[in-house]
């Protein structure tokens, strides 16, 4: 008996609002492509037909932070750029998530130098770190799937007047 056979009859499903909202949210994570250097090329590659980020509902790269849920920070963040990254992050509506893509963003990478922030977690709450220089598109997709898993576990009331520390705790 296939799905069509069931749908011919009148029927209903029981579920919780949280489950439906969580499912909808995680299947339409719209990324803000914060591509600041070489890693951005692999991020673009993840959107091409071969890797096809559309399979996860995330093909809509929004260049406006107001329409995005997920910031993919792909590239070397310098101290000067950190101000910009933070400002764009602040413009994204809640709820929002962050992927630190690549060695540079996660830890400063090969730029152990005065001008590069040694890890964006110094000023952003990072949800998933991605290893590699640059990470392969599969690796980015893996990070996205990890985020989806995390989003699936959220509940609507998680985002109502709760501090980040509390949120982190409830989501892990």
């Amino acid at each position, binding site marked *: 008996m296939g799905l069509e056979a069931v749908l011919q009859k009148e029927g209903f499903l029981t579920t919780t609002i949280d489950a439906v909202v969580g499912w909808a949210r995680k299947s339409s994570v719209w990324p803000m492509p914060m591509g600041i250097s070489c890693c951005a090329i692999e991020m673009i590659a993840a959107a091409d037909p071969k890797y096809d980020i559309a399979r996860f509902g995330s093909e809509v790269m929004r260049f406006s932070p107001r329409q995005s849920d997920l910031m993919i920070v792909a590239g070397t963040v310098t101290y*000067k750029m950190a*101000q910009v990254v933070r400002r764009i992050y602040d413009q994204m509506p809640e709820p929002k998530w962050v992927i630190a893509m690549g060695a540079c963003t996660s830890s400063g990478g090969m730029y152990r130098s*005065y*001008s590069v922030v040694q890890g964006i977690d110094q*000023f952003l709450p990072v949800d998933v770190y991605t290893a590699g220089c640059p990470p392969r598109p599969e690796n980015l997709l893996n990070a996205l799937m990890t985020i989806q898993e995390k989003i699936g576990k959220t509940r609507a009331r998680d985002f109502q007047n709760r501090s980040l520390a509390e949120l982190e705790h409830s989501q892990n």
Partner: protein
Amino acid sequence: MNTKELIIERVKEKFSESIEEISDFRDDLCFTIKKDQIVNLGKFLKEEPDLQFIMCKDVTAIDWATRKKRFTTVYHIYSFKLNYTLRLKSNIDDDPPTIETVSAVWQSANWYERETWDMYGIKFINHPDLRRIYMPEGFEHHPLKKDFPVLGIPGSLPLPNKAD
């Protein structure tokens, strides 16, 4: 007379006293000149009809750290007429390192000198707009100096507060 001999001869005619050294390493001709003559030499090389070094490709500096004359400024200039790149150098001492700007001779030197100021702290006298170009305004150090730590000085560059 080949190009190199021509340049050397012309420069020697006018600047024999202020030239400190003429080197020709691996076919790169280089004049080291006293720092008070750099603008005159630049103007001469640019305006002399036989030479016409009308393009300034780069201005940078070297920090020798332990030498008595701690810094050397380096200029790369190019002549379309001769199809030749020439290097000029000038040794300057520390505290505080200063040299006359060549931006009046070559407009392009304006930003190169801002970069050199930003990175080495060399003051270019009479520069029209000597501001930092890479580092944020308000930064107090000059990162390419040898006594600047590779990882920077903690707290010298502001970071946004942690988001909550």
